[in-house]
Protein backbone atom coordinates (compact mmCIF):
# COMPACT_ATOMS: atom_id res chain seq x y z
CA UNK A 1 0.00 0.00 0.00
CA UNK A 2 1.30 3.34 -1.00
CA UNK A 3 1.92 5.81 1.80
CA UNK A 4 -0.76 8.21 0.57
CA UNK A 5 -3.39 5.46 0.70
CA UNK A 6 -2.18 4.59 4.15
CA UNK A 7 -2.61 8.20 5.22
CA UNK A 8 -6.05 8.35 3.63
CA UNK A 9 -7.10 5.14 5.34
CA UNK A 10 -5.80 6.37 8.65
CA UNK A 11 -7.68 9.63 8.24
CA UNK A 12 -10.82 7.68 7.43
CA UNK A 13 -10.42 5.59 10.54
CA UNK A 14 -9.77 8.67 12.64
CA UNK A 15 -12.74 10.52 11.17
CA UNK A 16 -14.91 7.48 11.69
CA UNK A 17 -13.79 7.21 15.26
CA UNK A 18 -14.40 10.88 15.82
CA UNK A 19 -17.86 10.61 14.27
CA UNK A 20 -18.57 7.56 16.37
CA UNK A 21 -17.38 9.35 19.50
CA UNK A 22 -19.48 12.37 18.65
CA UNK A 23 -22.48 10.13 18.20
CA UNK A 24 -21.77 8.44 21.47
CA UNK A 25 -21.47 11.78 23.23
CA UNK A 26 -24.79 12.79 21.87
CA UNK A 27 -26.43 9.45 22.40
CA UNK A 28 -26.87 9.53 26.16
CA UNK A 29 -29.13 12.54 25.79
CA UNK A 30 -31.76 10.14 24.49
CA UNK A 31 -31.85 8.10 27.66
CA UNK A 32 -34.11 9.34 30.44
CA UNK A 33 -31.46 9.30 33.18
CA UNK A 34 -28.96 11.20 31.13
CA UNK A 35 -31.62 13.69 30.06
CA UNK A 36 -32.44 14.46 33.67
CA UNK A 37 -28.80 14.70 34.58
CA UNK A 38 -28.04 16.88 31.61
CA UNK A 39 -31.02 19.13 32.28
CA UNK A 40 -30.09 19.64 35.90
CA UNK A 41 -26.48 20.23 34.99
CA UNK A 42 -27.53 22.84 32.49
CA UNK A 43 -29.89 24.47 34.93
CA UNK A 44 -27.24 24.66 37.58
CA UNK A 45 -25.08 26.68 35.23
CA UNK A 46 -27.77 29.33 34.92
CA UNK A 47 -27.66 31.71 37.88
CA UNK A 48 -31.37 32.47 37.74
CA UNK A 49 -32.35 28.84 37.99
CA UNK A 50 -29.76 27.79 40.52
CA UNK A 51 -32.09 28.51 43.39
CA UNK A 52 -34.95 26.56 41.84
CA UNK A 53 -32.83 23.47 41.42
CA UNK A 54 -31.35 23.73 44.89
CA UNK A 55 -34.78 24.32 46.34
CA UNK A 56 -36.25 21.38 44.47
CA UNK A 57 -33.45 19.17 45.71
CA UNK A 58 -34.07 20.35 49.26
CA UNK A 59 -37.73 19.42 49.03
CA UNK A 60 -36.99 16.06 47.44
CA UNK A 61 -34.35 15.16 49.98
CA UNK A 62 -36.28 16.52 52.95
CA UNK A 63 -33.25 18.67 53.57
CA UNK A 64 -33.10 21.25 56.31
CA UNK A 65 -30.25 23.16 54.70
CA UNK A 66 -30.18 25.12 51.45
CA UNK A 67 -26.87 26.58 50.35
CA UNK A 68 -26.88 29.19 47.61
CA UNK A 69 -24.67 31.96 46.31
CA UNK A 70 -26.33 35.31 45.74
CA UNK A 71 -24.32 38.20 44.35
CA UNK A 72 -21.09 36.51 45.27
CA UNK A 73 -22.09 35.93 48.86
CA UNK A 74 -22.72 32.44 50.20
CA UNK A 75 -25.84 31.74 52.22
CA UNK A 76 -26.62 28.63 54.19
CA UNK A 77 -30.28 28.68 55.09
CA UNK A 78 -31.38 26.30 57.82
CA UNK A 79 -35.08 25.58 58.08
CA UNK A 80 -37.93 23.17 57.63
CA UNK A 81 -41.18 22.57 55.79
CA UNK A 82 -44.60 23.66 56.92
CA UNK A 83 -48.08 23.46 55.46
CA UNK A 84 -49.44 26.99 55.68
CA UNK A 85 -52.10 26.56 53.01
CA UNK A 86 -53.70 23.22 52.09
CA UNK A 87 -52.17 21.80 48.94
CA UNK A 88 -48.90 23.65 49.38
CA UNK A 89 -45.67 23.09 51.23
CA UNK A 90 -43.54 26.01 52.38
CA UNK A 91 -39.92 25.76 53.36
CA UNK A 92 -38.78 28.54 55.67
CA UNK A 93 -35.11 28.89 56.46
CA UNK A 94 -32.80 31.48 57.95
CA UNK A 95 -29.15 32.31 57.81
CA UNK A 96 -28.70 34.90 60.53
CA UNK A 97 -30.93 37.77 59.48
CA UNK A 98 -31.30 36.57 55.91
CA UNK A 99 -34.25 34.34 55.10
CA UNK A 100 -35.47 32.00 52.40
CA UNK A 101 -39.12 31.17 51.84
CA UNK A 102 -39.90 28.59 49.17
CA UNK A 103 -43.37 27.31 48.37
CA UNK A 104 -44.12 24.22 46.32
CA UNK A 105 -47.50 23.51 44.84
CA UNK A 106 -48.02 20.66 42.39
CA UNK A 107 -44.29 20.51 41.84
CA UNK A 108 -44.08 24.20 40.97
CA UNK A 109 -41.83 26.36 43.10
CA UNK A 110 -42.05 30.00 44.07
CA UNK A 111 -39.62 31.70 46.35
CA UNK A 112 -38.67 34.81 48.25
CA UNK A 113 -35.09 35.36 49.37
CA UNK A 114 -34.29 38.31 51.61
CA UNK A 115 -30.62 38.97 52.23
CA UNK A 116 -31.34 42.07 54.34
CA UNK A 117 -30.82 44.76 51.80
CA UNK A 118 -31.91 42.86 48.73
CA UNK A 119 -34.94 40.73 47.90
CA UNK A 120 -34.92 38.05 45.21
CA UNK A 121 -38.15 36.59 43.90
CA UNK A 122 -38.24 33.21 42.23
CA UNK A 123 -41.06 32.75 39.76
CA UNK A 124 -42.03 29.93 37.45
CA UNK A 125 -41.73 30.52 33.70
CA UNK A 126 -43.14 27.18 32.58
CA UNK A 127 -41.64 23.73 32.35
CA UNK A 128 -38.39 23.59 34.26
CA UNK A 129 -37.63 27.24 33.72
CA UNK A 130 -37.59 29.76 36.52
CA UNK A 131 -36.72 33.42 36.77
CA UNK A 132 -34.90 35.00 39.64
CA UNK A 133 -35.50 38.69 39.75
CA UNK A 134 -34.92 41.48 42.16
CA UNK A 135 -37.56 44.13 42.16
CA UNK A 136 -35.64 46.97 43.70
CA UNK A 137 -31.89 47.20 43.17
CA UNK A 138 -30.35 47.34 46.57
CA UNK A 139 -26.77 47.28 47.75
CA UNK A 140 -26.28 43.97 49.50
CA UNK A 141 -22.75 44.29 50.79
CA UNK A 142 -23.34 47.37 52.89
CA UNK A 143 -25.33 45.65 55.59
CA UNK A 144 -23.85 42.87 57.60
CA UNK A 145 -26.92 42.11 59.60
CA UNK A 146 -29.71 43.18 61.85
CA UNK A 147 -29.56 42.08 65.45
CA UNK A 148 -31.38 42.46 68.68
Amino acid at each position, binding site marked *: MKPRYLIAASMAVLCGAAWSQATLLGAPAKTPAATESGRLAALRKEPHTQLAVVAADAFALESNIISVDLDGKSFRFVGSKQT*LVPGTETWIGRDGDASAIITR*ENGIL*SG*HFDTVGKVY*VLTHLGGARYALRTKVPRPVA*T*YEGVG*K
Partner: protein
Amino acid sequence: MIRVALLFFALLVGSSAHAITTIRVLFLFTPEGKAYIESFGQTMASITAQEVAKTNNTFFLSGIDAQIESAGIIPNICCGNANFLLPWTMTEEGTDALDWASKSLGVAQAHDAANADIVMIISNYPGDISGRSFGWKGPYKAIVGVDALVIDEYASTHEIGHTMGAHHQSSGGQWFNDGRSTPYIYGHGFWYRSAAHCYHTIMSSPSADNGVPCSSDVEISRFSNPAQAIYANDGVFPLGSSLANNVQVLNNTKSQVGSYRVASWMKRQVFITVIGPMLTTLILE
Protein backbone atom coordinates in the same frame (compact mmCIF):
# COMPACT_ATOMS: atom_id res chain seq x y z
CA MET B 1 -60.02 29.13 97.78
CA ILE B 2 -59.53 32.81 97.01
CA ARG B 3 -55.75 32.47 97.25
CA VAL B 4 -55.83 29.55 94.84
CA ALA B 5 -57.96 31.56 92.45
CA LEU B 6 -55.60 34.54 92.67
CA LEU B 7 -52.61 32.30 92.06
CA PHE B 8 -54.32 30.77 89.04
CA PHE B 9 -55.14 34.26 87.74
CA ALA B 10 -51.54 35.40 88.20
CA LEU B 11 -50.23 32.36 86.38
CA LEU B 12 -52.70 32.98 83.58
CA VAL B 13 -51.65 36.61 83.18
CA GLY B 14 -47.96 35.76 83.47
CA SER B 15 -48.10 33.02 80.88
CA SER B 16 -50.06 35.11 78.41
CA ALA B 17 -47.63 38.04 78.52
CA HIS B 18 -45.27 36.41 76.01
CA ALA B 19 -47.67 34.00 74.39
CA ILE B 20 -47.74 33.79 70.63
CA THR B 21 -51.02 35.22 69.38
CA THR B 22 -52.45 33.77 66.18
CA ILE B 23 -54.21 36.19 63.83
CA ARG B 24 -56.40 34.66 61.17
CA VAL B 25 -56.29 36.35 57.76
CA LEU B 26 -58.84 35.68 55.04
CA PHE B 27 -57.43 36.18 51.53
CA LEU B 28 -59.84 37.50 48.92
CA PHE B 29 -58.75 37.84 45.29
CA THR B 30 -60.34 40.08 42.70
CA PRO B 31 -60.49 38.66 39.17
CA GLU B 32 -57.77 41.10 38.14
CA GLY B 33 -55.58 40.26 41.09
CA LYS B 34 -55.96 36.54 40.43
CA ALA B 35 -55.22 36.97 36.73
CA TYR B 36 -52.13 39.02 37.42
CA ILE B 37 -50.75 36.50 39.86
CA GLU B 38 -51.37 33.65 37.43
CA SER B 39 -49.70 35.60 34.63
CA PHE B 40 -46.35 35.12 36.30
CA GLY B 41 -46.79 31.50 37.14
CA GLN B 42 -48.16 31.72 40.66
CA THR B 43 -51.42 30.63 42.17
CA MET B 44 -53.62 32.04 44.89
CA ALA B 45 -52.53 29.24 47.20
CA SER B 46 -48.81 29.76 46.62
CA ILE B 47 -49.12 33.53 46.98
CA THR B 48 -51.09 33.11 50.20
CA ALA B 49 -48.53 30.70 51.61
CA GLN B 50 -45.72 33.08 50.71
CA GLU B 51 -47.46 36.07 52.29
CA VAL B 52 -48.18 34.17 55.50
CA ALA B 53 -44.59 32.94 55.68
CA LYS B 54 -43.09 36.37 54.94
CA THR B 55 -45.21 38.08 57.58
CA ASN B 56 -44.49 35.45 60.20
CA ASN B 57 -40.79 35.58 59.43
CA THR B 58 -40.83 39.37 59.80
CA PHE B 59 -42.76 39.13 63.06
CA PHE B 60 -40.27 36.62 64.40
CA LEU B 61 -37.15 38.54 63.39
CA SER B 62 -38.59 41.85 64.61
CA GLY B 63 -39.49 40.46 68.03
CA ILE B 64 -43.28 40.39 67.73
CA ASP B 65 -45.00 37.59 69.62
CA ALA B 66 -47.65 36.95 67.00
CA GLN B 67 -48.17 34.90 63.88
CA ILE B 68 -50.76 34.88 61.15
CA GLU B 69 -52.51 31.94 59.59
CA SER B 70 -54.67 31.63 56.52
CA ALA B 71 -58.38 31.59 57.30
CA GLY B 72 -59.11 30.67 53.70
CA ILE B 73 -58.89 31.80 50.09
CA ILE B 74 -61.80 33.13 48.08
CA PRO B 75 -61.31 33.88 44.37
CA ASN B 76 -63.06 36.34 42.12
CA ILE B 77 -64.74 38.46 44.72
CA CYS B 78 -66.49 41.56 43.67
CA CYS B 79 -67.01 42.41 40.05
CA GLY B 80 -63.99 44.35 39.01
CA ASN B 81 -61.50 46.83 40.27
CA ALA B 82 -63.80 49.80 39.93
CA ASN B 83 -65.67 48.73 43.02
CA PHE B 84 -62.56 49.20 45.08
CA LEU B 85 -62.10 52.79 44.04
CA LEU B 86 -64.97 54.06 46.14
CA PRO B 87 -63.83 52.71 49.49
CA TRP B 88 -60.24 53.54 48.72
CA THR B 89 -61.04 57.22 48.38
CA MET B 90 -61.82 57.27 52.07
CA THR B 91 -59.20 58.51 54.43
CA GLU B 92 -57.38 55.71 56.13
CA GLU B 93 -59.30 55.88 59.34
CA GLY B 94 -61.92 58.39 58.34
CA THR B 95 -64.61 55.81 57.85
CA ASP B 96 -65.24 52.88 60.02
CA ALA B 97 -63.96 49.62 58.61
CA LEU B 98 -67.18 47.95 59.58
CA ASP B 99 -69.10 50.49 57.50
CA TRP B 100 -66.83 49.88 54.52
CA ALA B 101 -67.13 46.15 54.92
CA SER B 102 -70.91 46.30 55.05
CA LYS B 103 -70.92 48.01 51.65
CA SER B 104 -68.40 45.76 50.08
CA LEU B 105 -70.11 42.88 48.44
CA GLY B 106 -70.16 40.33 51.12
CA VAL B 107 -66.73 41.01 52.55
CA ALA B 108 -68.16 41.22 56.03
CA GLN B 109 -70.07 37.98 55.59
CA ALA B 110 -66.98 36.27 54.24
CA HIS B 111 -65.03 37.51 57.24
CA ASP B 112 -67.56 36.07 59.64
CA ALA B 113 -68.00 32.79 57.78
CA ALA B 114 -64.24 32.18 57.74
CA ASN B 115 -63.90 33.08 61.39
CA ALA B 116 -61.19 35.53 60.35
CA ASP B 117 -59.66 38.47 62.17
CA ILE B 118 -58.40 40.37 59.14
CA VAL B 119 -59.53 40.34 55.54
CA MET B 120 -56.88 40.88 52.90
CA ILE B 121 -57.97 41.81 49.40
CA ILE B 122 -55.51 41.07 46.62
CA SER B 123 -56.31 43.37 43.74
CA ASN B 124 -54.52 44.79 40.74
CA TYR B 125 -55.81 48.23 40.14
CA PRO B 126 -53.85 49.82 37.27
CA GLY B 127 -51.65 52.65 38.35
CA ASP B 128 -51.98 51.93 42.02
CA ILE B 129 -48.91 50.29 43.42
CA SER B 130 -49.68 50.43 47.10
CA GLY B 131 -51.90 48.78 49.61
CA ARG B 132 -54.70 50.18 51.68
CA SER B 133 -55.69 49.49 55.20
CA PHE B 134 -58.75 50.49 57.12
CA GLY B 135 -57.43 48.95 60.23
CA TRP B 136 -57.51 49.92 63.83
CA LYS B 137 -60.98 51.26 63.66
CA GLY B 138 -63.61 48.58 63.32
CA PRO B 139 -64.89 46.93 66.46
CA TYR B 140 -64.10 43.50 65.17
CA LYS B 141 -63.06 43.89 61.55
CA ALA B 142 -60.10 45.19 59.69
CA ILE B 143 -59.75 45.28 55.95
CA VAL B 144 -56.57 45.27 53.95
CA GLY B 145 -56.26 45.79 50.24
CA VAL B 146 -52.94 44.94 48.70
CA ASP B 147 -52.12 45.55 45.09
CA ALA B 148 -50.93 42.40 43.40
CA LEU B 149 -48.19 44.37 41.72
CA VAL B 150 -46.29 44.60 44.94
CA ILE B 151 -47.37 41.37 46.54
CA ASP B 152 -43.90 39.94 46.15
CA GLU B 153 -42.39 42.43 48.56
CA TYR B 154 -43.71 43.29 52.00
CA ALA B 155 -46.90 45.15 51.12
CA SER B 156 -49.23 42.76 52.90
CA THR B 157 -47.05 42.73 56.00
CA HIS B 158 -47.09 46.53 55.92
CA GLU B 159 -50.91 46.61 55.70
CA ILE B 160 -51.27 44.08 58.49
CA GLY B 161 -49.10 46.44 60.53
CA HIS B 162 -51.67 49.18 59.94
CA THR B 163 -54.51 46.95 61.07
CA MET B 164 -52.59 46.43 64.28
CA GLY B 165 -52.14 50.15 64.96
CA ALA B 166 -48.80 50.92 63.33
CA HIS B 167 -48.27 54.09 61.28
CA HIS B 168 -45.89 55.40 58.66
CA GLN B 169 -42.91 57.54 59.57
CA SER B 170 -43.80 60.66 61.54
CA SER B 171 -41.88 62.98 59.22
CA GLY B 172 -39.25 63.18 56.53
CA GLY B 173 -40.45 60.40 54.25
CA GLN B 174 -41.08 60.64 50.55
CA TRP B 175 -44.79 60.05 51.01
CA PHE B 176 -47.46 59.93 53.66
CA ASN B 177 -45.79 61.40 56.68
CA ASP B 178 -48.02 60.57 59.57
CA GLY B 179 -48.05 62.62 62.72
CA ARG B 180 -50.84 60.74 64.46
CA SER B 181 -50.35 59.77 68.06
CA THR B 182 -53.13 57.20 68.40
CA PRO B 183 -53.30 54.51 69.49
CA TYR B 184 -49.64 55.05 70.46
CA ILE B 185 -47.43 58.09 70.03
CA TYR B 186 -44.44 55.85 69.38
CA GLY B 187 -46.14 53.79 66.69
CA HIS B 188 -44.25 55.04 63.64
CA GLY B 189 -41.96 53.56 61.06
CA PHE B 190 -38.30 54.50 61.03
CA TRP B 191 -36.00 55.81 58.33
CA TYR B 192 -32.36 56.79 58.27
CA ARG B 193 -30.35 58.80 55.81
CA SER B 194 -26.68 59.67 55.74
CA ALA B 195 -23.98 59.87 53.14
CA ALA B 196 -23.12 56.23 53.70
CA HIS B 197 -26.49 54.66 54.48
CA CYS B 198 -30.11 55.16 53.46
CA TYR B 199 -32.71 52.74 54.70
CA HIS B 200 -36.23 52.47 56.08
CA THR B 201 -38.27 49.91 57.97
CA ILE B 202 -41.42 48.16 56.74
CA MET B 203 -43.93 50.78 57.91
CA SER B 204 -41.86 53.67 56.58
CA SER B 205 -41.21 55.00 53.11
CA PRO B 206 -37.91 55.95 51.55
CA SER B 207 -36.53 59.00 53.25
CA ALA B 208 -36.88 62.32 51.51
CA ASP B 209 -33.90 64.13 50.11
CA ASN B 210 -32.86 66.35 52.98
CA GLY B 211 -29.71 67.51 51.31
CA VAL B 212 -27.83 64.28 51.86
CA PRO B 213 -27.28 62.40 48.61
CA CYS B 214 -28.57 58.85 48.57
CA SER B 215 -28.16 56.69 45.51
CA SER B 216 -30.26 53.77 46.67
CA ASP B 217 -32.63 53.52 49.60
CA VAL B 218 -32.89 50.09 51.20
CA GLU B 219 -35.99 48.62 52.82
CA ILE B 220 -35.05 46.66 55.90
CA SER B 221 -37.64 43.93 56.36
CA ARG B 222 -38.24 44.68 60.01
CA PHE B 223 -40.74 46.68 61.99
CA SER B 224 -39.16 49.66 63.73
CA ASN B 225 -37.66 48.72 67.06
CA PRO B 226 -35.24 50.83 69.14
CA ALA B 227 -33.97 47.61 70.72
CA GLN B 228 -32.61 46.37 67.40
CA ALA B 229 -29.86 47.76 65.23
CA ILE B 230 -28.08 47.30 61.93
CA TYR B 231 -24.53 46.09 62.24
CA ALA B 232 -22.71 47.42 59.19
CA ASN B 233 -19.08 47.51 58.24
CA ASP B 234 -18.67 51.04 59.49
CA GLY B 235 -20.73 51.05 62.66
CA VAL B 236 -24.02 50.26 64.36
CA PHE B 237 -27.13 52.03 63.09
CA PRO B 238 -30.58 52.32 64.70
CA LEU B 239 -33.80 50.66 63.62
CA GLY B 240 -36.08 52.74 65.81
CA SER B 241 -36.41 55.72 68.11
CA SER B 242 -38.62 57.10 70.85
CA LEU B 243 -41.27 57.80 68.20
CA ALA B 244 -40.60 54.71 66.10
CA ASN B 245 -41.38 51.51 67.90
CA ASN B 246 -43.81 49.52 65.76
CA VAL B 247 -42.81 46.32 67.53
CA GLN B 248 -44.10 47.61 70.86
CA VAL B 249 -47.37 48.63 69.20
CA LEU B 250 -47.92 45.26 67.58
CA ASN B 251 -47.12 43.43 70.80
CA ASN B 252 -49.60 45.70 72.57
CA THR B 253 -52.43 45.13 70.11
CA LYS B 254 -51.91 41.52 69.02
CA SER B 255 -54.45 40.09 71.42
CA GLN B 256 -57.14 42.56 70.44
CA VAL B 257 -56.57 42.03 66.72
CA GLY B 258 -56.46 38.29 67.28
CA SER B 259 -59.94 38.43 68.71
CA TYR B 260 -61.61 40.34 65.86
CA ARG B 261 -63.04 37.03 64.73
CA VAL B 262 -66.60 36.29 65.53
CA ALA B 263 -65.87 33.09 67.40
CA SER B 264 -63.53 34.86 69.81
CA TRP B 265 -66.01 37.64 70.31
CA MET B 266 -68.74 35.10 71.04
CA LYS B 267 -66.50 33.15 73.39
CA ARG B 268 -65.68 36.34 75.23
CA GLN B 269 -69.32 37.19 75.56
CA VAL B 270 -70.09 33.69 76.82
CA PHE B 271 -67.29 33.99 79.35
CA ILE B 272 -68.40 37.41 80.52
CA THR B 273 -72.07 36.58 80.73
CA VAL B 274 -72.07 32.93 81.80
CA ILE B 275 -68.76 31.42 82.88
CA GLY B 276 -67.44 34.54 84.61
CA PRO B 277 -70.34 34.85 87.10
CA MET B 278 -70.28 31.10 87.69
CA LEU B 279 -66.58 31.18 88.54
CA THR B 280 -67.04 34.21 90.74
CA THR B 281 -69.80 32.48 92.62
CA LEU B 282 -67.69 29.34 92.99
CA ILE B 283 -64.67 31.24 94.24
CA LEU B 284 -66.66 33.30 96.72
CA GLU B 285 -68.26 30.18 98.08
